């Protein structure tokens, strides 16, 4: 253990992989030293675990209705109570974690690369490419996000895939802005000039040299953004435009519990609490990551 720690904190790395290991370890230590970040990390990890293991850990079916068991308040039998169809809210929350994770992951893997590519291309090539791409970005940024997503979903029709598409379409512009700003400083550095003199093509420089250097600020921004993505998705679900039944989506659960709010408070309260906690988790983790990976911007 001590040997390992000494190896991980060595002042002079012996190889490239050693240097990477040292850097990863030191970043991890910095992350773990902030209790709020650790809480955020735990929440996100819990979301992933619950989502994956939902079929095995959920005590009951999330969709089986039992009208003799309607509106049972939270207790030993049903930890989070039951809803208007006698469905177990705990099981629905656990399965709902799958929907949330699905949306978050899909938006992250579609919007982030698009934004990264647009931003780096605009920043690296400059000139016309820059003007056109950034103008398009500005137009998308000129819309409030939820409203644009609403308009897209209204055109595409409700459903989880269309919700993801609409959110991804509204999520990429800030990434493009950040990537462009980073690229502008990287572009003029000496090592890029050296690579260019060696005859590297534009695409090679962007993909091989610029994109990797943008990635840490990108990771921070994406993590912080996931809180907003969850809230937008929940908002769409609340309006009935997100994931459709029988999928249990947290926002839609709040919406259906809303009718019984004053008599059976838990039906709307508990799914909303789940949205809040997960979104808080991403915010805490993002704040912590920013302090470690991107200390300038905090």
């Amino acid at each position, binding site marked *: 253990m001590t040997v390992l720690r000494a190896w991980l904190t060595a002042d002079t790395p012996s190889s490239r992989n050693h240097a990477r290991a040292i850097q990863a370890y030191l970043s991890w230590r910095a992350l773990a030293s902030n209790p709020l970040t650790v809480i955020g990390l735990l929440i996100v990890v819990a979301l992933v675990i619950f989502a994956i293991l939902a079929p095995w850990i959920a005590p009951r079916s999330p969709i089986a209705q039992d009208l003799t068991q309607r509106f049972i308040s939270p207790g030993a039998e049903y930890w989070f109570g039951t809803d208007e169809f006698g469905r177990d809210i705990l099981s629905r929350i656990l399965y709902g974690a799958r929907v949330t994770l699905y949306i978050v992951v899909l938006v992250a893997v579609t919007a982030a690369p698009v934004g990264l590519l647009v931003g780096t291309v605009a920043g690296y090539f400059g000139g016309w490419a820059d003007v056109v791409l950034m103008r398009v970005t500005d137009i998308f940024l000129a*819309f*409030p996000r939820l409203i644009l997503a609403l*308009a897209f979903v*209204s*055109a595409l029709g409700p459903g989880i895939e269309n919700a993801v598409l609409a959110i991804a379409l509204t999520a990429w512009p800030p990434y493009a802005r950040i990537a462009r700003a980073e690229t502008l400083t990287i572009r003029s550095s000496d090592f890029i000039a050296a690579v260019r003199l060696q005859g590297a093509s534009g695409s090679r420089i962007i993909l091989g040299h610029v994109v990797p250097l943008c990635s840490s600020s990108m990771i921070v921004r994406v993590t912080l953004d996931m809180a907003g993505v969850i809230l937008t998705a929940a908002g769409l679900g609340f309006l009935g435009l997100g994931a459709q039944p029988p999928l249990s989506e947290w926002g839609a659960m*709040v919406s259906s519990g809303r009718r019984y709010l004053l008599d059976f408070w838990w039906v709307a309260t508990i799914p*909303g609490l789940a949205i809040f906690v997960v*979104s808080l988790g991403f915010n805490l983790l993002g704040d912590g990551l920013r302090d470690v990976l991107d200390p300038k911007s905090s």
Partner: protein
Amino acid sequence: MVGSVLLTFFGLLLITFLIGRVVPVDPVLSAVGDRASHDTYEQARRELGLHLPLWEQFVNYVLQVLRGELGKSVLTANTVVDDIKRVFPATLELATTATFFGVALGVPMGVVAAVNQGRWPDQLVRLLGLFGYSMPVFWLGLMGLLLFYGILDIAAAPGRLDFANLDVVETWTGLILLDAALQNEWEIFFDALHHLILPAAVLGYFSLAYISRMTRSFMLEQLRQEYVTTARVKGLSEARVVWRHALGNVMVPLITVIALSYANLLEGSVLTETVFAWPGLGLYLTSSLLAADMNAVLGATLVVGVIFIGINLLSDLLYKLVDPRAK
């Protein structure tokens, strides 16, 4: 700057136009009904200009919008422009009161947090801000209703007025508070206020989260400056240094922040209005959405986009006006 605003507006039109084209709803069918003959269908199609090539349709759309026409709403049978005129004051009233909450509480909280950097007031403000960034606005609204209306019974029921008080004051500006005050209907005024406070506080919490965070970081930057030290050395009281000198310099960048948060409230108001049955632009947008009333949806989207651009432009201009360095 004018060019970039115009270009953004053009892009906005292009987006709403394209969204209108890909909708699965056939605008001809919704106009003539599905039992119309082929000839009637063709005729209606021509009247709506849908036989033209796409670019020509777009040009017509732009001209139409510039003339101030947004088509007819299927749901209300009025023109979309009239509908929006009718519902917009409710949103304006809500968002303005919410911003007022956000500024009146958020700025002092940000200042106190910056002065006590790292100590408990700072942590408290940070936590409140984090919660604001993480909470679904519709859920906070429901929790507010549950607590203040359901349990404590001190807030009013959803809606803008009590049922008995509807249509008592004439609509002059559409802002009920103002209309009631101008017409000396103080009972209505206080009823409207009673209904307004909870939704405005819920919405205002989100602008408070943003404004307090930004105020804090601006203040921290100012408090490090040398003129602050000079002011202290001169013997000015700490309160005067903080609230007069430092905060005075923070006001300029804060204008942009407040304008942005005001614009963002338009977005939050969509969900807040749904929760509180508040008959504004947001509720209009969502109820048209659910009825697949595309003219209304696209019209409302366009109006929100234009307001958004307008507020941003306005904050830029104000900034230049207040801060001579920005010229």
